[in-house]
């Protein structure tokens, strides 16, 4: 590195000059090279259902609810991971797309408790999913809620195996690797080694798994308790963005407040400091603001 060669610009972040233009439902859409079909759909204002996708995680394209039809492709393609290419012709609302989305939602609804899943009910209505048509004998996950500590619970009856928690625990964020998918097929579960309890596992209680779970299968204990008491009222909650009070990283927090009490803490996935990921102190260390013992 010589004086003449050195710039103070980030060489890895030189502006992307190349863009690609694809056709979505007959209309041209231009996005930056490297963006996905989902990005293109979003920029074109098209609502695309997603479950296993999160902007702060590597796409695993496992849930298949975001599939679209690509001219020339034998099968549908997952929009979340498929890179947009020049000249692609994409259909997002064709009968094939609608059918597969409906079936994915229906399949999930037939085996998993989706009652707390974000947005899923809207999509089920939109695509006409009827999980009931597999009959009352249809196999379900059927797992008891795991309550092993005071910070979060795991309710695998609600798990759609989207892998987000595994990614957030592992190489997409925390690098702790306390959990993994285990087993195979319908019997696959997210699990610690030999299903040891979380306190006995490598878990460091960053709660990043809770932060990315789309169905409430991993849930803050505070939320779980309030739901049990029928006192969880998201419509009454305010969300305030602030900065964590602990170390010097500067993680952004979203304080969810109900009845003037903090009820849970999340972090914005689009924030450049930690992309929605926190540690145990940021995610759970807020209790001193409203301790059970009166602050004097």
């Amino acid at each position: 590195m010589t004086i003449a060669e050195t710039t103070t610009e980030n060489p890895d972040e030189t502006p992307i000059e190349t863009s690609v233009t694809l056709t979505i439902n007959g209309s041209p859409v231009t996005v930056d090279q490297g963006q996905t079909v989902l990005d293109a759909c979003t920029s074109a204002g098209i609502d695309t259902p997603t479950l296993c996708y999160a902007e702060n995680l590597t796409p695993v394209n496992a849930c298949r609810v975001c599939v679209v039809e690509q001219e020339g492709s034998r099968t549908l393609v997952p929009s979340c991971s498929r890179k947009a290419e020049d000249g692609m012709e994409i259909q997002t609302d064709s009968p094939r797309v609608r059918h597969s989305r409906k079936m994915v939602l229906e399949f999930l609804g037939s085996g998993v408790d989706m009652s707390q899943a974000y947005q899923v009910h809207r999509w089920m209505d939109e695509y006409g999913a009827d999980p009931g048509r597999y009959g009352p004998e249809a196999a379900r996950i059927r797992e008891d809620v795991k309550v092993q500590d005071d910070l979060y619970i795991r309710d695998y009856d609600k798990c759609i195996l989207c892998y987000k928690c595994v990614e957030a625990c592992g190489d997409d964020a925390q690098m702790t690797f306390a959990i993994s998918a285990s087993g195979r097929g319908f019997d696959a579960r997210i699990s610690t080694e030999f299903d040891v309890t979380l306190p006995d596992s490598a878990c460091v209680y960053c709660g990043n798994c809770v932060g990315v779970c789309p169905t409430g299968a991993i849930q803050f204990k505070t939320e779980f308790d309030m739901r049990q008491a029928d006192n969880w009222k998201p419509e009454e909650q305010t969300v305030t963005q602030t900065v964590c009070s602990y170390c010097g990283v500067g993680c952004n927090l979203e304080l969810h407040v109900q009845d003037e009490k903090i009820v849970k803490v999340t972090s914005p996935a689009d924030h450049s400091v930690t992309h929605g990921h926190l540690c145990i102190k940021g995610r759970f260390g807020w209790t001193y603001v409203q301790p059970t013992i009166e602050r004097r």
Partner: protein
Amino acid sequence: MQGLQNGASMYAVDPRRTSSAKFADLWLGLELGSDVALANTVANYIVSNDLHNKEFIAHSTTGFDAYVESLSEYTLEHGEALTGVPAAAIAEMATAYATAEKAQILWTLGITEHHNAVDNVLSLCNLALLTGHVGRWGSGLVPLRGQNNVQGGGDMGALPNKLPGFQNITDPEHRGKFEKVYGKEIPAEDGIHLTLMFEAMERGEITAAYVIGENPADSEADIAHARKLLKGLDLLVVQDIFLTRTAELADVVLPASVGWAECDGTVTSSERRVQRVRAAVPPPGLARHDQDILRDLAHLLDYPEWGDPTPEDLWEELRSLSPLHGGMTYDRLEAEGGLQWPCPDLDHPGSPFLHGWLWEPDLGGRAGAPFSPVVAQGPKEQRTEEFPLWMTTGRSLDSYNTGVQSGQMNSPIRYGNALDMNPADAAQLNLVDGETVKVSSPRGSVEMPIRVQPDIPVGLTFTTFHFPELVDINQLTNDAWDKRSGTAEFKAASIRVEKLVTA
């Protein structure tokens, strides 16, 4: 960690094999306090093997020859003797650092909580200057702040010699700018820092203290001494969100609100990023915002000009006075996810790193960066027959400082306060995991359980300082401190561990 995933190498230099060290390509478990020795040995190796960046040194630095001369005794063999790190490992790390396209040195309190803290830091700065790993994208010197707003405190002038924006109190021009806005004269001399304040208390020169958001009655080294001094004050006012041990000693307690959840304002993180905090919940009971308490106090002290500013009003004033912050409006902080100073004007994007001037053809009109020869000194206190073990202190993941905040959380991974000890040391003392022992240093004794830990080398022990109500660990720590930084040597004390005789 994402950097490691993307192919970066990491060398962890720490007396303990910490969680971070377990991610490292190589963990170098140096002897406690041998940081300068290691840095100088690395430097000597780099220069001896012609791995230094000669063009950068010639262009951007001063004092190279004297620096090289100061390194002469730090051969690999001598370095190994001083640090306990095998010579080959030192050479490997030195080569990796010097030949990397980009390299950073990151550190935290293991470097700065020593009696020779400034030497430690300078020895690392020297390495960056030697290799040109500073002032450009991806390379640099990265001191990691341990607290969310310790940087912001400095930014805002909470230093004895600085006004907001690191402007000098002793500089009449800087001072004058503030005096004009404040309408009051500012004392023209530097103040004194915390460690000197305690010494001044001891001499009876300070008889009153106003403590805001700090718990020195738990956090100071050689704590018994510190508490005695606090008790001896004529007046102690404590403004805090908790009734801390310091507050318990106070004549007046002003209950404050939680800055990040009950107030609006800004904080500055380790990377000099200024970000907004916002009130989400109201303060409980009689607790009030710090700014309201200070405003009322100002009014009571006959300073009506203080007025009744909002947090944003105060920030706007700061922007007008601190060139580093000039471009940071509340709107921009919100829209851009915070901004890193210097950000002098509204069009400035903020500064991800400093010292880019080192690479400019004219050095931005400045003189080159000086090498600072430093001599290796071990910890102030050495191990003796009476106190044959080292003790170092630090944090655990789920706890924070004296635990007044984190202690409220019911953490499943908290193991409480314990003295980590190598299995061999434990065996020699006939101790088992979890056994409560007596731990003594030249300053005092405490009783605490041990935790047998293979990750800590023989001869060294470690404990956190998160549970002062359980174990008053700062009874043991050494209050020897660096005159230049004001930081005490929390990281190195000699101790003795004794089995408790059961009745």
